[in-house]
C-alpha cells in the first residue's frame, strides 16, 4: 500500500509540470530575407490542415509540396486536423510544458484563431513582415478582420471566399431566396434538404441567425448574449418546425461536408453548400456533381470570410514556415489556387497592387461557369460575427436540434 502511494505521488509530480506561456518574440527583424531563406533550407515542417476536400489536398500535395521542396529545399509534411483538433493538440502540448511543437503551421480562421490566441499558441506578429504581404488587401474588412477580430499579424490571409448554396437545377427550378420560401420548399420536397453538423453548416446557420437578428450588420461587434438569445430562439424554432422535412427526417445531419456532397451527387439531396463560391465548378469538372448543379446566394445573404495560415508558438522552424507562407501568398501560388479547375479559391491579394503582367493573368483566370460572379454576390456578403456566435451555435445545435 505504501508503495502504491509513492507511485501516485510520482505520477502526480510528473503531471504537474508547468506550461510556459511566454509570448513568443519575433526576431525576424534581425535577419534579411535572403538569410532567412538560407536558414530555412533543409528544414522539415508540419502543416496541420482540414483534409476534407480532394482538390485542396491535391493543390497542397502535388503543387505546394513539390514547389517548396524544389525552391526552398523545405519538406512540407501535411497532417489532417480541423480547427478543434488543432486547438486540442496544441493545448495538450502547452499543458505538458513542451518546448517544441509537433505542428509548425496551421490552417485556421475564426473561432480556431480566437481560441489559439486565448491559449497563446500562435506566434506573431509575423504576417506583415513577409515580403509578399505588401500585395495583400489588408484594407478589406473581410480579410484584415477575422470574425470581428483584428488579425494583427498573428495569422496570414491565404484565401477569401463567400458561402454559396448549391442546388440541382433539374430538381429545383427556382431556388428559395428567403427562409420562408425555404420552409415552403422543404415541405413540398421532404428529405431533400439538410445542413451539416460542421463548419460549413454552421456558417449557413450564422447567415440565418443574422437574418433573424434583423439582417445586414446587426450582429457586428462583440458577442451580445441578449441578441444571440433572441435571434437563436427564432432560429431553433424555425429549424425544429421544419426538420421533419429535412433529410432523414432531421434525425441525423451529415458529419462531414464531403458526406453531404456525396448525398447531393447521388441525388439524395437537392441542396448542398460550400464555403467556397466557386466549388460548384470544380466539383462538376471532377464529375462529382451533375452538370445541372448551380450555386447561388439567397437574398438574406451569406458569410464572406477569409482563411489564414498561422505559425505555432512552439514551432522550432518558424523561419521555414514563414518562407512557405510567403510562397503561399505569392501571386503565382494565389493565381494557381484561383483556377476553378485547381481549387477556385478567391485571392487575398489586391490585384491592383501587382504588376500589369500579373494583373492580366488574374483577369484571365478561367471564368466561372455555374457559379455566380463574385461581383454579383459581393453585394450580399455578410461579415463573420464574433467567434462566440459560432461556438454557441455549435453547442446549441446539438442541444436544441440534434437532441431536441
Amino acid at each position: 500500500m505504501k508503495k502504491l502511494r509513492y507511485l501516485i505521488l510520482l505520477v502526480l509530480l510528473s503531471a504537474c509540470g508547468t506550461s510556459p506561456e511566454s509570448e513568443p518574440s519575433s526576431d525576424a527583424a534581425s535577419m534579411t530575407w535572403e538569410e532567412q531563406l538560407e536558414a530555412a533550407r533543409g528544414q522539415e515542417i508540419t502543416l496541420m490542415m482540414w483534409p476534407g476536400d480532394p482538390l485542396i489536398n491535391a493543390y497542397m500535395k502535388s503543387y505546394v509540396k513539390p514547389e517548396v521542396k524544389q525552391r526552398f529545399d523545405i519538406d512540407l509534411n501535411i497532417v489532417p486536423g480541423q480547427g478543434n483538433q488543432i486547438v486540442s493538440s496544441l493545448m495538450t502540448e502547452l499543458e505538458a510544458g513542451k518546448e517544441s511543437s509537433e505542428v509548425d503551421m496551421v490552417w485556421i480562421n475564426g473561432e480556431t484563431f480566437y481560441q489559439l490566441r486565448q491559449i497563446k499558441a500562435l506566434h506573431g506578429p509575423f504576417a506583415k513582415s513577409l515580403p509578399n504581404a505588401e500585395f495583400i488587401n489588408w484594407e478589406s474588412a473581410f480579410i484584415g478582420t477575422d470574425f470581428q477580430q483584428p488579425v494583427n499579424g498573428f495569422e496570414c490571409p491565404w484565401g477569401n471566399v463567400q458561402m454559396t448554396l448549391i442546388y440541382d437545377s433539374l430538381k429545383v427550378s427556382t431556388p428559395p431566396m428567403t427562409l420562408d420560401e425555404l420552409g415552403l420548399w422543404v415541405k413540398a420536397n421532404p428529405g431533400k434538404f439538410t445542413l451539416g453538423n460542421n463548419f460549413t453548416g454552421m456558417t449557413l446557420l450564422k447567415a440565418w441567425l443574422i437574418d433573424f437578428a434583423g439582417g445586414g450588420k446587426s450582429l457586428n461587434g462583440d458577442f451580445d448574449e441578449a441578441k444571440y438569445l433572441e435571434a437563436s430562439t427564432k432560429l431553433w424554432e424555425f429549424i425544429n418546425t421544419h426538420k421533419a422535412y429535412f433529410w432523414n427526417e432531421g434525425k441525423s445531419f451529415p458529419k462531414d461536408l464531403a458526406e453531404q456532397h456525396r448525398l447531393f451527387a447521388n441525388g439524395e439531396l437537392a441542396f448542398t453548400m460550400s464555403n467556397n463560391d466557386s466549388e460548384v465548378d470544380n466539383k462538376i469538372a471532377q464529375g462529382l456533381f451533375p452538370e445541372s448543379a448551380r450555386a447561388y446566394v439567397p437574398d438574406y445573404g451569406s458569410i464572406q470570410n477569409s482563411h489564414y495560415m498561422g505559425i505555432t508558438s512552439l514551432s522550432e522552424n518558424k523561419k521555414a514556415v514563414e518562407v512557405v507562407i510567403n510562397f503561399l501568398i505569392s501571386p503565382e501560388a494565389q493565381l494557381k489556387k484561383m483556377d476553378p479547375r485547381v481549387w477556385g479559391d478567391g485571392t487575398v491579394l489586391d490585384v491592383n497592387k501587382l504588376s500589369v503582367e500579373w494583373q492580366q493573368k488574374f483577369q484571365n483566370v478561367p471564368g466561372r461557369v455555374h457559379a455566380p460572379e463574385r461581383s454579383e454576390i459581393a453585394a450580399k456578403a455578410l461579415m463573420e460575427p464574433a467567434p462566440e456566435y459560432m461556438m454557441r451555435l455549435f453547442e446549441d445545435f446539438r442541444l436544441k436540434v440534434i437532441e431536441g
Partner: protein
Amino acid sequence: MILGRKNIVLTAFVLICLLPLLMGFVYSLGYSLGVFGLMNEGFTLDHWLRLFASKDAWSSLIYTFLLTLVSITLVIVFAGLLSRAFVSKPERSFTQKLLLLPLLFAPVAAGFAWYYVLSPAGILSRISHALGLTEDITSFPRMVNDDWSIGILLVHVFLVLPIFTFLFTAQAKSMNLLEMNKLATSLGSSRLQCFTKLWLPALVKRFKLLIVLYAVFFMGTYEVPLILGQSSPRVLTVFISEKLTMFSLDDIPLGHCMAVFYSACIFIVLSFFLYRQKSTAS
C-alpha cells in the same frame, strides 16, 4: 538474490499492465476535477455536476449500454444457431472456412465496407434499383446512420460471430449436446425448446467470462459507430473523443469526466468477473 530475475520480470509485467492505466486515470481524474489543464482554475466538482446534468451524457451512456446488450445477444443467438447447424458437420467444411474471413477485417475496414454495402447510394441499393425493387435512392430503407443502429449491429455481429460460432460448435461437440438434444426431444421438448432451454443456456454458461469480455469490447467500440452511427446519441468513446476535441474548450473536462467514468466502470466489471470466479473456484 533479493530481487531475482523472476521478481524483476513479474514486477515489470505488473507495471506494464497497471502503471499506464493508473497514470492516465490520475491525469483524467485531475483534469475532470479542475486540477490540471490550461483552462482549469483549481479544484472543482462543477465538471462532474455538468456531466451528470447533461442529457447528452446520459443518452450516450444508455445508448452504449443498449447497443452492447443487443450486439452481444445477437451474436450469442446467431452463434448458437450456427453451432447447431455445424455440430453434425465435418470439422472444416467450406462454409466454416469462409466464416474465418471476418477475422481478417479491421473494424475500420469492416465499417467502411458495410457502409458502402448498406447506404442508400450503396451496393444493395443499386442492386435493388437495377432489379426495379426501388425507384430511387430515397425509397431504399436507411440502414446506416439510422435510428436503430442497424449498420452498427450488423458489423458487430460480422466481426464477432465467427469466434463465437467456432467456440460454440467445438464446445457443443465436446459436451455432446446433440445427444442431450435427442434425449430432450424424446422427452417431448420441441425443437425451439431444445434450443432455448438446453442448447443456448449450456453454451452461455460455459462461456460466461468470454461473453462478459466481449460485452466490454462492445462498450468500447469506436471505429464502427464513428463510421455508421448517428450524430446523436453517440457511443461513449465517440462522446469522449468529441468532447476532448470540441470547439468549446470548456467541454474538455467533460470528456475527461466521461473517460474516468468509463474506465472505472470497465475496471469494476472486469474485477468482479475475473476475481470473483477465482475465489469461488478455490
